[in-house]
Protein backbone atom coordinates (compact mmCIF):
# COMPACT_ATOMS: atom_id res chain seq x y z
CA UNK A 1 0.00 0.00 0.00
CA UNK A 2 1.36 3.37 -0.97
CA UNK A 3 1.46 5.91 1.83
CA UNK A 4 0.04 9.40 1.43
CA UNK A 5 2.42 12.35 1.53
CA UNK A 6 0.93 13.42 4.84
CA UNK A 7 1.63 10.03 6.39
CA UNK A 8 5.19 10.08 5.08
CA UNK A 9 5.80 13.54 6.51
CA UNK A 10 4.43 12.53 9.90
CA UNK A 11 6.63 9.45 10.01
CA UNK A 12 9.63 11.52 8.90
CA UNK A 13 9.10 14.03 11.71
CA UNK A 14 9.20 11.19 14.23
CA UNK A 15 12.88 10.50 14.98
CA UNK A 16 12.29 6.77 15.44
CA UNK A 17 10.70 6.29 11.99
CA UNK A 18 12.62 8.94 10.05
CA UNK A 19 14.83 6.62 7.98
CA UNK A 20 11.94 4.29 7.25
CA UNK A 21 9.76 7.19 6.10
CA UNK A 22 12.50 8.54 3.89
CA UNK A 23 12.98 5.14 2.32
CA UNK A 24 9.27 5.01 1.53
CA UNK A 25 9.38 8.53 0.13
CA UNK A 26 12.29 7.60 -2.16
CA UNK A 27 10.50 4.49 -3.38
CA UNK A 28 7.37 6.54 -4.07
CA UNK A 29 9.05 9.37 -6.00
CA UNK A 30 12.36 8.08 -7.31
CA UNK A 31 11.10 7.05 -10.73
CA UNK A 32 9.09 10.19 -11.41
CA UNK A 33 12.00 12.40 -10.38
CA UNK A 34 14.57 10.28 -12.17
CA UNK A 35 12.72 10.46 -15.51
CA UNK A 36 12.14 14.17 -15.12
CA UNK A 37 15.87 14.67 -14.52
CA UNK A 38 16.88 12.20 -17.25
CA UNK A 39 14.91 14.11 -19.87
CA UNK A 40 16.78 17.28 -18.94
CA UNK A 41 20.34 15.91 -18.58
CA UNK A 42 19.79 12.99 -21.05
CA UNK A 43 22.71 10.81 -19.92
CA UNK A 44 21.95 8.05 -17.37
CA UNK A 45 25.15 8.54 -15.31
CA UNK A 46 24.47 12.28 -15.05
CA UNK A 47 20.83 11.63 -14.13
CA UNK A 48 21.99 9.15 -11.48
CA UNK A 49 24.32 11.77 -9.91
CA UNK A 50 21.62 14.43 -9.97
CA UNK A 51 18.84 12.24 -8.54
CA UNK A 52 21.10 11.18 -5.66
CA UNK A 53 21.99 14.81 -4.92
CA UNK A 54 18.31 15.72 -5.07
CA UNK A 55 17.36 13.12 -2.45
CA UNK A 56 20.25 14.12 -0.20
CA UNK A 57 19.04 17.74 -0.37
CA UNK A 58 15.51 16.54 0.35
CA UNK A 59 16.78 14.61 3.40
CA UNK A 60 18.45 17.75 4.74
CA UNK A 61 15.54 20.10 4.03
CA UNK A 62 12.47 17.94 4.57
CA UNK A 63 12.33 18.68 8.29
CA UNK A 64 11.89 22.37 7.44
CA UNK A 65 9.29 21.69 4.72
CA UNK A 66 6.32 23.81 5.78
CA UNK A 67 3.77 22.29 3.41
CA UNK A 68 3.06 25.60 1.69
CA UNK A 69 2.95 23.56 -1.49
CA UNK A 70 2.36 19.88 -2.16
CA UNK A 71 5.25 17.55 -1.50
CA UNK A 72 5.62 16.41 -5.12
CA UNK A 73 5.70 19.98 -6.49
CA UNK A 74 8.41 20.79 -3.94
CA UNK A 75 10.37 17.69 -5.00
CA UNK A 76 9.95 18.53 -8.70
CA UNK A 77 11.22 22.05 -8.05
CA UNK A 78 14.35 20.76 -6.34
CA UNK A 79 14.90 18.25 -9.15
CA UNK A 80 14.44 20.92 -11.84
CA UNK A 81 16.82 23.36 -10.15
CA UNK A 82 19.43 20.66 -9.56
CA UNK A 83 19.25 19.56 -13.20
CA UNK A 84 19.70 23.10 -14.49
CA UNK A 85 22.55 23.69 -12.04
CA UNK A 86 24.15 20.46 -13.23
CA UNK A 87 23.94 21.47 -16.90
CA UNK A 88 25.37 24.91 -16.09
CA UNK A 89 28.27 23.38 -14.16
CA UNK A 90 28.89 20.98 -17.05
CA UNK A 91 29.00 23.96 -19.37
CA UNK A 92 31.57 25.66 -17.09
CA UNK A 93 33.65 22.48 -16.75
CA UNK A 94 33.80 22.03 -20.50
CA UNK A 95 34.15 25.79 -21.18
CA UNK A 96 31.43 25.60 -23.84
CA UNK A 97 28.06 27.35 -24.17
CA UNK A 98 24.97 25.46 -23.00
CA UNK A 99 23.71 25.03 -26.58
CA UNK A 100 26.91 23.11 -27.40
CA UNK A 101 26.39 20.83 -24.41
CA UNK A 102 22.92 20.10 -25.73
CA UNK A 103 24.31 19.58 -29.22
CA UNK A 104 26.74 17.04 -27.77
CA UNK A 105 23.93 15.32 -25.84
CA UNK A 106 21.88 15.20 -29.02
CA UNK A 107 24.75 13.55 -30.92
CA UNK A 108 25.37 11.04 -28.13
CA UNK A 109 21.72 9.92 -28.13
CA UNK A 110 21.98 7.82 -31.28
CA UNK A 111 24.80 5.70 -29.80
CA UNK A 112 23.42 5.54 -26.24
CA UNK A 113 22.68 1.91 -25.23
CA UNK A 114 20.12 3.23 -22.75
CA UNK A 115 18.15 4.92 -25.50
CA UNK A 116 15.83 2.50 -27.23
CA UNK A 117 13.57 4.85 -29.14
CA UNK A 118 12.97 4.46 -32.86
CA UNK A 119 13.98 7.00 -35.51
CA UNK A 120 11.00 9.23 -34.89
CA UNK A 121 11.55 9.22 -31.15
CA UNK A 122 15.25 10.01 -31.63
CA UNK A 123 14.28 12.88 -33.89
CA UNK A 124 11.77 14.11 -31.30
CA UNK A 125 14.42 14.06 -28.56
CA UNK A 126 16.87 15.89 -30.81
CA UNK A 127 14.20 18.48 -31.58
CA UNK A 128 13.46 18.87 -27.87
CA UNK A 129 17.17 19.35 -27.13
CA UNK A 130 17.21 22.25 -29.57
CA UNK A 131 14.67 24.17 -27.46
CA UNK A 132 15.78 26.83 -24.96
CA UNK A 133 16.16 25.27 -21.46
CA UNK A 134 12.93 26.63 -19.97
CA UNK A 135 10.82 25.70 -23.01
CA UNK A 136 12.40 22.24 -22.94
CA UNK A 137 11.50 21.70 -19.30
CA UNK A 138 7.95 22.93 -19.86
CA UNK A 139 7.54 20.68 -22.91
CA UNK A 140 8.89 17.64 -21.03
CA UNK A 141 6.66 18.24 -18.03
CA UNK A 142 3.55 18.70 -20.14
CA UNK A 143 4.16 16.17 -22.88
CA UNK A 144 6.09 13.36 -21.20
CA UNK A 145 5.25 13.73 -17.50
CA UNK A 146 1.64 14.59 -18.26
CA UNK A 147 1.49 17.36 -15.68
CA UNK A 148 -1.27 19.95 -15.84
CA UNK A 149 -0.52 23.60 -16.52
CA UNK A 150 -1.58 24.51 -12.98
CA UNK A 151 0.86 22.00 -11.53
CA UNK A 152 3.74 23.13 -13.76
CA UNK A 153 2.95 26.75 -12.86
CA UNK A 154 3.41 25.98 -9.16
CA UNK A 155 6.62 24.02 -9.72
CA UNK A 156 8.27 26.57 -12.01
CA UNK A 157 6.67 29.61 -10.35
CA UNK A 158 5.28 30.87 -13.67
CA UNK A 159 1.82 32.00 -14.74
CA UNK A 160 -0.40 29.57 -16.60
CA UNK A 161 -0.61 32.00 -19.53
CA UNK A 162 3.16 32.17 -19.88
CA UNK A 163 3.36 28.36 -19.70
CA UNK A 164 0.75 27.87 -22.41
CA UNK A 165 2.58 30.32 -24.66
CA UNK A 166 5.90 28.58 -24.02
CA UNK A 167 4.43 25.14 -24.71
CA UNK A 168 2.79 26.40 -27.90
CA UNK A 169 6.12 27.87 -29.11
CA UNK A 170 7.92 24.63 -28.22
CA UNK A 171 5.43 22.55 -30.22
CA UNK A 172 5.73 24.89 -33.21
CA UNK A 173 9.53 24.69 -33.10
CA UNK A 174 9.45 20.88 -32.91
CA UNK A 175 7.03 20.72 -35.84
CA UNK A 176 9.30 23.01 -37.80
CA UNK A 177 12.31 20.81 -36.96
CA UNK A 178 10.42 17.74 -38.19
CA UNK A 179 9.33 19.30 -41.46
CA UNK A 180 12.73 20.82 -42.25
CA UNK A 181 14.93 17.79 -41.34
Amino acid at each position, binding site marked *: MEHTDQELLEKFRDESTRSYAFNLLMRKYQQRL*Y*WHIRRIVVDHDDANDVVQNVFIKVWKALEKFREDSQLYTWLYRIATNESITFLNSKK*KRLFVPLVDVEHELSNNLSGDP*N*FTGDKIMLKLQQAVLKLPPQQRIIFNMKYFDGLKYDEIAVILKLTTGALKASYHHAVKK*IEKYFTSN
Partner: protein
Amino acid sequence: MQPDDEDLKKIASMLVEIKDDLSSGKAENPFAVPVGYFDSLNAEVMKKIESLPDFESVSSENPFQVPAGYFESLPTIIQQRIVENKSKKISIGEWIAEVFSQPAPKYALAFASIILVIVFSTKYFTRTVKVDYVDQQIPDSEQLDAFYLQQVDESTLAEVYSEEFTATTTTDSQNQGIENYLLDNDIDINSITEQL
Protein backbone atom coordinates in the same frame (compact mmCIF):
# COMPACT_ATOMS: atom_id res chain seq x y z
CA MET B 1 -19.59 59.48 -69.22
CA GLN B 2 -22.09 56.73 -69.96
CA PRO B 3 -21.15 54.24 -72.78
CA ASP B 4 -23.32 54.62 -75.85
CA ASP B 5 -24.96 51.79 -77.76
CA GLU B 6 -21.95 51.44 -80.06
CA ASP B 7 -19.55 50.80 -77.14
CA LEU B 8 -21.88 48.29 -75.52
CA LYS B 9 -22.03 46.33 -78.75
CA LYS B 10 -18.19 46.22 -78.95
CA ILE B 11 -17.85 44.96 -75.33
CA ALA B 12 -20.48 42.27 -75.93
CA SER B 13 -18.65 40.99 -79.02
CA MET B 14 -15.31 40.90 -77.07
CA LEU B 15 -16.87 38.85 -74.27
CA VAL B 16 -18.20 36.39 -76.83
CA GLU B 17 -14.68 36.03 -78.30
CA ILE B 18 -13.08 35.40 -74.84
CA LYS B 19 -15.76 32.84 -74.05
CA ASP B 20 -14.91 30.99 -77.24
CA ASP B 21 -11.16 31.04 -76.39
CA LEU B 22 -11.72 29.70 -72.83
CA SER B 23 -13.98 26.91 -73.99
CA SER B 24 -11.46 25.88 -76.65
CA GLY B 25 -8.63 25.72 -74.05
CA LYS B 26 -6.56 28.52 -75.55
CA ALA B 27 -5.94 30.22 -72.10
CA GLU B 28 -2.75 28.69 -70.59
CA ASN B 29 -1.58 28.54 -66.91
CA PRO B 30 1.80 30.32 -66.64
CA PHE B 31 2.87 28.21 -63.59
CA ALA B 32 4.11 24.62 -63.68
CA VAL B 33 4.75 21.79 -61.20
CA PRO B 34 7.31 18.94 -61.35
CA VAL B 35 6.24 15.89 -63.31
CA GLY B 36 4.08 13.57 -61.20
CA TYR B 37 3.81 16.11 -58.36
CA PHE B 38 0.10 15.67 -57.77
CA ASP B 39 0.39 11.89 -57.92
CA SER B 40 2.83 11.83 -54.99
CA LEU B 41 1.49 14.84 -53.01
CA ASN B 42 -1.09 12.85 -51.09
CA ALA B 43 1.45 10.24 -49.95
CA GLU B 44 3.99 12.94 -49.07
CA VAL B 45 1.53 14.80 -46.82
CA MET B 46 0.47 11.57 -45.10
CA LYS B 47 4.11 10.65 -44.48
CA LYS B 48 4.75 13.97 -42.76
CA ILE B 49 1.60 13.70 -40.70
CA GLU B 50 2.59 10.22 -39.55
CA SER B 51 6.12 11.34 -38.67
CA LEU B 52 4.84 14.19 -36.50
CA PRO B 53 4.69 13.36 -32.79
CA ASP B 54 1.18 13.13 -31.43
CA PHE B 55 1.11 16.21 -29.24
CA GLU B 56 -2.47 15.59 -28.23
CA SER B 57 -1.73 12.33 -26.45
CA VAL B 58 -0.76 13.06 -22.87
CA SER B 59 1.07 9.89 -21.93
CA SER B 60 4.00 9.43 -24.27
CA GLU B 61 6.32 6.58 -24.87
CA ASN B 62 9.55 6.73 -22.87
CA PRO B 63 12.52 6.00 -25.12
CA PHE B 64 15.07 5.98 -22.28
CA GLN B 65 16.10 2.97 -20.20
CA VAL B 66 17.98 2.39 -16.97
CA PRO B 67 20.33 -0.47 -16.05
CA ALA B 68 18.58 -3.55 -14.65
CA GLY B 69 17.72 -3.28 -10.95
CA TYR B 70 18.63 0.41 -10.83
CA PHE B 71 15.55 1.61 -8.95
CA GLU B 72 15.72 -1.29 -6.48
CA SER B 73 19.23 -0.34 -5.36
CA LEU B 74 18.91 3.47 -5.57
CA PRO B 75 17.29 4.04 -2.10
CA THR B 76 20.05 2.00 -0.43
CA ILE B 77 22.79 3.92 -2.25
CA ILE B 78 21.27 7.26 -1.24
CA GLN B 79 20.84 6.22 2.40
CA GLN B 80 24.47 5.08 2.49
CA ARG B 81 25.53 8.46 1.19
CA ILE B 82 23.43 10.21 3.84
CA VAL B 83 25.06 8.11 6.59
CA GLU B 84 28.54 8.84 5.15
CA ASN B 85 27.78 12.57 5.06
CA LYS B 86 26.64 12.46 8.68
CA SER B 87 29.72 10.67 10.01
CA LYS B 88 32.16 12.57 7.82
CA LYS B 89 33.86 15.30 9.83
CA ILE B 90 36.46 17.02 7.75
CA SER B 91 39.40 18.98 9.05
CA ILE B 92 40.14 22.54 7.87
CA GLY B 93 42.95 21.21 5.68
CA GLU B 94 40.63 18.72 4.02
CA TRP B 95 38.00 21.41 3.59
CA ILE B 96 40.48 23.72 1.87
CA ALA B 97 41.60 20.84 -0.35
CA GLU B 98 37.96 20.17 -1.21
CA VAL B 99 37.34 23.82 -2.07
CA PHE B 100 40.33 23.79 -4.43
CA SER B 101 39.25 20.53 -6.01
CA GLN B 102 35.89 21.99 -7.06
CA PRO B 103 35.25 22.11 -10.82
CA ALA B 104 34.59 25.85 -10.71
CA PRO B 105 38.01 27.43 -10.05
CA LYS B 106 36.50 30.86 -9.42
CA TYR B 107 35.46 29.81 -5.88
CA ALA B 108 38.97 28.61 -5.11
CA LEU B 109 40.39 31.87 -6.47
CA ALA B 110 37.94 33.93 -4.41
CA PHE B 111 38.84 31.89 -1.33
CA ALA B 112 42.59 32.34 -1.96
CA SER B 113 42.08 36.10 -2.44
CA ILE B 114 40.25 36.37 0.88
CA ILE B 115 43.03 34.46 2.67
CA LEU B 116 45.68 36.73 1.10
CA VAL B 117 43.79 39.88 2.12
CA ILE B 118 43.47 38.60 5.72
CA VAL B 119 47.16 37.67 5.94
CA PHE B 120 48.41 40.97 4.52
CA SER B 121 45.98 43.02 6.62
CA THR B 122 47.14 41.25 9.79
CA LYS B 123 50.78 41.77 8.86
CA TYR B 124 50.21 45.44 8.05
CA PHE B 125 48.22 46.39 11.15
CA THR B 126 50.42 44.50 13.61
CA ARG B 127 53.77 45.63 12.19
CA THR B 128 56.43 47.28 14.45
CA VAL B 129 57.36 50.76 13.33
CA LYS B 130 60.97 51.61 14.23
CA VAL B 131 61.65 55.32 14.56
CA ASP B 132 65.28 56.33 14.31
CA TYR B 133 65.63 59.04 16.99
CA VAL B 134 69.14 59.97 15.97
CA ASP B 135 68.63 62.59 13.36
CA GLN B 136 71.03 65.28 12.23
CA GLN B 137 68.25 67.89 11.89
CA ILE B 138 67.00 67.52 15.48
CA PRO B 139 68.99 69.19 18.31
CA ASP B 140 70.81 66.85 20.68
CA SER B 141 68.75 67.96 23.67
CA GLU B 142 65.47 67.03 21.95
CA GLN B 143 66.91 63.74 20.78
CA LEU B 144 67.97 63.08 24.36
CA ASP B 145 64.46 63.96 25.62
CA ALA B 146 62.97 61.70 23.00
CA PHE B 147 65.32 58.94 24.05
CA TYR B 148 64.33 59.32 27.73
CA LEU B 149 60.65 59.53 26.85
CA GLN B 150 60.95 56.23 25.01
CA GLN B 151 62.44 54.65 28.12
CA VAL B 152 59.74 56.01 30.44
CA ASP B 153 56.79 53.75 31.08
CA GLU B 154 53.20 54.85 31.70
CA SER B 155 53.31 54.45 35.49
CA THR B 156 56.31 56.77 35.79
CA LEU B 157 54.56 59.38 33.66
CA ALA B 158 51.43 59.14 35.79
CA GLU B 159 53.52 59.57 38.95
CA VAL B 160 55.30 62.67 37.59
CA TYR B 161 52.03 64.19 36.45
CA SER B 162 50.40 63.64 39.84
CA GLU B 163 53.37 65.27 41.63
CA GLU B 164 53.14 68.31 39.33
CA PHE B 165 49.42 68.55 39.93
CA THR B 166 49.92 68.48 43.74
CA ALA B 167 52.59 71.17 43.50
CA THR B 168 50.33 73.43 41.42
CA THR B 169 47.48 72.90 43.87
CA THR B 170 49.75 73.81 46.81
CA THR B 171 50.91 77.08 45.14
CA ASP B 172 47.34 78.03 44.39
CA SER B 173 46.25 77.49 48.02
CA GLN B 174 49.23 79.64 49.27
CA ASN B 175 48.26 82.52 46.94
CA GLN B 176 44.68 82.25 48.19
CA GLY B 177 45.92 82.64 51.84
CA ILE B 178 47.91 85.81 51.02
CA GLU B 179 44.94 87.25 49.19
CA ASN B 180 42.66 86.57 52.17
CA TYR B 181 45.18 88.19 54.54
CA LEU B 182 45.34 91.34 52.40
CA LEU B 183 41.58 91.58 52.22
CA ASP B 184 41.09 90.96 55.96
CA ASN B 185 43.61 93.68 56.91
CA ASP B 186 42.39 96.08 54.25
CA ILE B 187 45.84 96.40 52.68
CA ASP B 188 46.02 97.91 49.22
CA ILE B 189 48.34 95.81 47.01
CA ASN B 190 49.31 98.98 45.05
CA SER B 191 50.79 100.60 48.17
CA ILE B 192 52.99 97.55 48.70
CA THR B 193 54.08 97.70 45.08
CA GLU B 194 54.96 101.41 45.44
CA GLN B 195 56.96 100.72 48.62
CA LEU B 196 58.88 98.01 46.84
